[in-house]
């Protein structure tokens, strides 16, 4: 019955935490009843191949979990682009990306407005619409391709490759160890969000309009941002690669934790150098006319960036401590106990 346990484990990783235990308990009971029924009929235990056939009939773990979700919304423009199975993850990634880019745009506009700059409503609408269109188009197309693949090949999965049983039963009972696995959709979402952010970063480097909007002729980014560009790209690439590997091997928890620790550490170093720079936004034309409110606006922007960086730095320290603790715990777990689960 190890195959069934693996299957249930995989289905459970895609379910909302609040419903997970109840659904898995019921699904487990129904599958075991079906297997027992077949065994009585055949007068012998089912072979692994026969158990596989039963699980295949139940369906891909992602699709099974998706059907249990209360939220059956989808994205459709004429035909359906993103179905209910991927919709919750699509919304999560889109909200995250839009949240970041809207926050940056909003802060820039609020500071400019507070400093008495002439900002028209259409300027704000144009800048926000641009962010919305870019993020929406990229994230939607990527999730649509993923959805299409899933719909085209619903049977392209192997029950034997479902996540392995993590630990022996006595460790399974410890909730903190039970939650140590990396759900595949979390990895896929991380890859998509990172790829979109990388595209945005490259676009923003070439076109500062994406950051400053109509104030692009007045302000520009200080040289420090160009110096931290390469390490920032490195962090994003680590996130993409780790997401890709954990998508294929969700049981490689040790790799996931080590990658997150590396990303948090590099982020912390980057933030340290950023804080040391003391100047993050400068006047586009420092030798030009500075009679207006621009130096004052610049001061407000830089102060806002300073406090934001301090906040990010604090989060970075918490992340490093958390991931270090997690990694130490995983490394302390004997290999014969953790088996292939925590590579």
């Amino acid at each position, binding site marked *: 019955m190890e195959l069934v346990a693996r299957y249930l484990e995989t289905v459970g990783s895609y379910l909302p935490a609040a419903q997970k235990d109840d*659904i898995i*308990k019921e699904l487990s*009971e*129904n599958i075991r*009843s*079906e297997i027992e029924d077949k065994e009585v009929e055949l007068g012998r235990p089912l072979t692994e191949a026969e158990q596989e056939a039963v699980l295949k009939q139940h*369906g891909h773990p992602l699709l099974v979990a998706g059907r*249990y979700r209360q939220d059956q919304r989808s994205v459709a423009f004429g035909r359906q682009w993103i179905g209910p199975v991927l919709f919750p993850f699509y919304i999560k990634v889109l909200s995250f990306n839009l949240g970041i880019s809207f926050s940056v745009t909003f802060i820039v506009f609020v500071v400019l407005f507070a400093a008495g700059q002439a900002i028209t409503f259409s300027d704000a609408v144009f800048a926000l619409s641009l962010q919305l269109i870019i993020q929406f188009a990229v994230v939607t197309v990527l999730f649509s391709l993923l959805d299409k693949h899933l719909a085209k090949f619903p049977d392209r999965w192997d029950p034997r490759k479902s996540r392995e049983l993590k630990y022996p039963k006595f460790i399974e009972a410890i909730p903190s160890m039970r939650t140590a696995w990396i759900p595949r959709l979390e990895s896929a979402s991380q890859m998509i969000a990172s790829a979109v952010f990388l595209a945005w970063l490259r676009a923003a480097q070439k076109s500062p309009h994406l950051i400053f909007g109509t104030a692009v002729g007045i302000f520009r980014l200080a040289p420090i941002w160009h110096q931290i560009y390469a390490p920032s790209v490195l962090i994003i690439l680590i996130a993409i690669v780790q997401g890709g590997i954990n998508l294929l091997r969700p049981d490689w928890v040790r790799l996931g934790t080590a990658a997150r620790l590396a990303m948090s550490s590099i982020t912390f170093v980057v933030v340290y150098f950023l804080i040391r720079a003391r100047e993050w936004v400068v006047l586009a034309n420092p030798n030009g006319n500075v009679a207006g409110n621009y130096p004052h606006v610049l001061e407000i922007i830089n102060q806002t960036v300073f406090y934001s960086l301090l906040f990010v730095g604090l989060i970075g320290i918490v992340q490093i401590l958390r991931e270090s603790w997690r990694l130490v715990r995983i490394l302390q777990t004997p290999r014969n106990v953790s088996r292939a689960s925590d590579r």
Partner: protein
Amino acid sequence: MTLDGSLFENLRLELRRGSLILAVLTQLRTEQYGYTLRKALADHGMAIDEGTLYPLLRRLETQGLLVSEWREEDKRNKRFYKLSADGKLILKQLLAEWRSIDASLNGILRG
């Protein structure tokens, strides 16, 4: 979409969807758990795959048409479903509607 198998399949699924709910509600006039319910439906020619039936049971329970309880049977805990009071009322109305549609359709078919 062309007039091929996929169009027929879509229309067939649409036709079956409402009928399945009616079949499930009717079958649950007597208490059953997921697997035995699926077998009973299949025995009556209404085969339904697991991935559709089990989430459907939960949805019908959320809508207040079914009630469920965990109980031990054959030394194992199973979740048993049956029609709620509201479910019985709705089923009565749905069956009346079904009979009316059936009669009308037969009338149309006879010309």
